[in-house]
């Protein structure tokens, strides 16, 4: 089996400006040794294919109702693996609802129902033998307002691996926590105060902690619901840089109402309006040459 350390090696890329957004960076698999510590052997449930196979999320005629109110109308969307897909649209268009359907967080709301299907790597999310708990480990989520547990920084990141029994020893856990914090670009800032309360961090740091926490369970997909909307510009930029770095290892779906952010950060963009998917395509195409009139109207700011 290939050494996971090597497979994960990549050179960090700085975020590019709007002009070069969308140009795909080939996933470099040059076997150069990186400074990162060895990634602990984390066992995955058996999936079709090895870690290297593309993981996609695919929605087929997916509709969703809150009671009598239909929030999503027959969404057909393919989310490519190892890319950032942005969901944009005005308030109430259903983009957050769609996002939360991917890890079935909408199950928590009483009185909802859906139609159609969403598949993760070919398996339906809603099949009877789908394990929601396992799904949520494979599909991680970062929320709009950072929500760290009222525990220490270490305990926050360690919670997911602990509860999912991902590691066998304390040593492995510590390595995993360190690795996750490094990948969330937070390690240097907190490495000396891992046992201090997470609530003492700044807003931007807390959000990166939540990202580290989500990464610690080794997800395949990371969902982000307006992750930077509550942050100042500098913290926002850090988060966007992070997203850019993470996409070589994870499939990322990000909901944002900030179009410039979508243009900066994503490879594919999907425009939602009133519960329908109006248009989806490569980000640079959507923003420079949209096919649908509504898309153009939204992007040029005529409504929203």
């Amino acid at each position, binding site marked *: 089996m290939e050494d996971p350390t090597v497979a994960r090696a990549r050179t960090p890329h700085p975020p590019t400006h709007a002009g070069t957004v969308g140009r795909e960076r080939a996933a470099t698999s040059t076997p150069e040794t990186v400074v990162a510590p060895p990634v602990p052997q984390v*066992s*995955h*449930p058996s999936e079709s294919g090895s870690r290297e196979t593309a993981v996609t999320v695919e929605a087929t005629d997916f509709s969703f109702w809150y009671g009598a109110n239909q929030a999503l109308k027959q969404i057909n969307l393919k989310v490519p693996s190892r890319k950032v897909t942005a969901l944009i649209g005005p308030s109430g268009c259903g983009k957050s609802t769609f996002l939360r359907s991917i890890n079935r967080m909408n199950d928590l709301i009483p009185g909802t129902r859906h139609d159609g299907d969403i598949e993760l790597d070919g398996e339906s999310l809603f099949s009877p033998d789908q*394990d929601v*708990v*396992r799904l949520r480990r494979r599909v991680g989520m970062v929320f709009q307002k950072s929500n760290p547990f009222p525990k220490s920084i270490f305990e926050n990141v360690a919670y997911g691996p602990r509860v999912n*029994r991902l590691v066998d020893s304390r040593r492995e856990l510590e390595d995993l926590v360190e690795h996750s914090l490094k990948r969330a670009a937070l390690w240097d800032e907190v490495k000396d105060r891992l046992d201090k309360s997470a609530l003492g961090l700044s807003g931007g740091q807390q959000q990166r902690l939540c990202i580290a926490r989500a990464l610690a369970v080794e997800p395949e997909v990371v969902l982000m619901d307006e992750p930077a909307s509550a942050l100042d510009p500098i913290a926002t930029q850090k988060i966007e840089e992070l997203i850019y770095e993470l996409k070589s290892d994870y499939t990322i779906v990000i909901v944002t109402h900030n179009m410039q952010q979508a243009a900066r950060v994503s490879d594919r963009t999907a425009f939602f309006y009133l519960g329908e998917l109006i248009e989806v395509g490569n980000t640079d195409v959507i923003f420079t040459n949209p096919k649908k009139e509504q898309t153009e109207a939204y992007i040029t700011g005529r409504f929203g």
Partner: protein
Amino acid sequence: MTDAINRRRKIQNTVWLTLTGVASLLVVVPLILIFYHLISSGAGALNVAFFTRLPAPVGETGGGMANALLGTAQLVFYAGLFGIPIAVAVGVFMAEAGRTRFGSFVRLVADVMNGIPSIVVGIFVWAWVVVAMGGFSLLAGAIALAVMLIPMVARTTEEMVRLVPKELREGGQALGFTRWRTTLGIVLPAAKSGILTGVLVALARIAGETAPLLFTAFGNPFWEWRLNEPVASLPLLIYQYAISPYDDWHRQAWAASLVLIGLVLVVNVLARSIFKNPYRSR
């Protein structure tokens, strides 16, 4: 391996969540049992005699609890008469002065008094009133119930007065009303349905109290209207009959309990319908 662990987690999840359901069942079951017995054992003994006759002499059957019904009504009436005005005044005070040190202190005292065992209240009133009067009496019983009523109604009154939006109060002051006119003329009337609810619930509570009456009202096998004589009451009679060895008295105790609970329930439902109270009155 992971599958086995996940299966164990799922089993734990199911087991614990089921246990919470079991806990809920265990809590609800006594309620159902009590009501079942009340009806099955009590309904049979509810006849005209129960409501109209006096208790029969010890060992004889066929008596009723008419005087106890009257006695309870009298006790509750006088307790309310003495206690409600005082309680509302204290409640208004706490609502107005609640943020001051003295106001918070009074609130603490009220909450603590709500927690005093009812038997201790009875003993206190015995030492104060019964000893002074030289005997048990309706008055002493009413005072004991009033002492229990006052902190209850004071707290609910405070909460209700607090609920009145301050715009109403400010409106009154903007119109030139003095402080006392605002409180008495505007705020209190606005809170009156909530206050009434609190009063009704408290009256229902004290109607069912036994311990404070053991050494104050004491009980009386006959009709009684005078304030300075002992008086019968429903809870006292239930107690006396329950611990007795006579079957007929046991049945009457169940019947009396049914009546008592019926009264308490009706009053509570009435009270809640007057004011949809989202807050629990502690």
